[in-house]
């Protein structure tokens, strides 16, 4: 299982990175491959490449603002959530992402 995702919050100072950390640890705990891009006040970091998108089973967009480059994920199974959910409800969010890959 390879999960990729983007996190972004209105001020781009804290939640973006907390959500990244939570998604990464949850994926790591499950032994998944993962890569989470952040779009915060520092700009885009850990940017997802075409190859990352190609190899991903599912995309989690934990974003509370409009993000750059959303069209990259066209055709992929996508879970959308608020950035807060990736922090407070990350287990179920990843569950949902996994379920989505099994339905498609």
């Amino acid at each position, binding site marked *: 299982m390879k999960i990729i995702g983007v996190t972004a919050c209105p*001020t781009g*100072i*804290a*939640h973006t990175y*907390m959500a990244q950390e*939570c998604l990464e640890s949850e994926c790591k705990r499950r032994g998944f491959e993962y890569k989470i891009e952040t779009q915060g*006040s520092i700009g885009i970091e850990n940017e997802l490449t075409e190859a990352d998108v190609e190899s991903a089973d599912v995309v989690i967009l934990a974003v*509370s603002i409009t993000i750059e480059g959303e069209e990259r994920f066209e055709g992929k199974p996508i879970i959308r959530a608020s950035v807060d959910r990736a922090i*407070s409800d990350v287990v179920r969010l990843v569950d949902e992402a996994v379920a989505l890959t099994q339905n498609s």
Partner: protein
Amino acid sequence: MIEKDLVFLDADLSSREAVLDTIIEKADQLNYLSDKSVFKEGVLEREETIPTSVGFKVAIPHCRSDVVNHPFVAFMRTTQDFIWDTRNNETVDFIFMIGVPESSGDNLHLKFLSAISRKLMKEEFRDSLRSAKTTQEAYDILESINQSIGG
């Protein structure tokens, strides 16, 4: 960006209002703010959007504003946890307040803030702050993050 005067251990406060006022007052005394009431309004406005209580008993009220003279992080540990915002009923006893100027010259402080935000999600980091006995100890823990990013 981190300084000992902005580390508050075992504050006997139990409301968001009291916590914000105490930290903002201190930040103002230390000349981090050019207009404390505008800063507080900004912080509350951000809280209105979505409460910054993120679980794990942590809240991170923050604001990016041109009334912030220099970036700062304040840390407060309260004696008991209290409900931060009735919209999600999360209780908190750790409060990180962050102030960032609107136009930031360099990225270092932003990198620090992202590093600390990530660290806060780690239980062992929270535990170390929870067991800190003196403000110096808590300060050292926070400052070590600053060192690790080369700030």
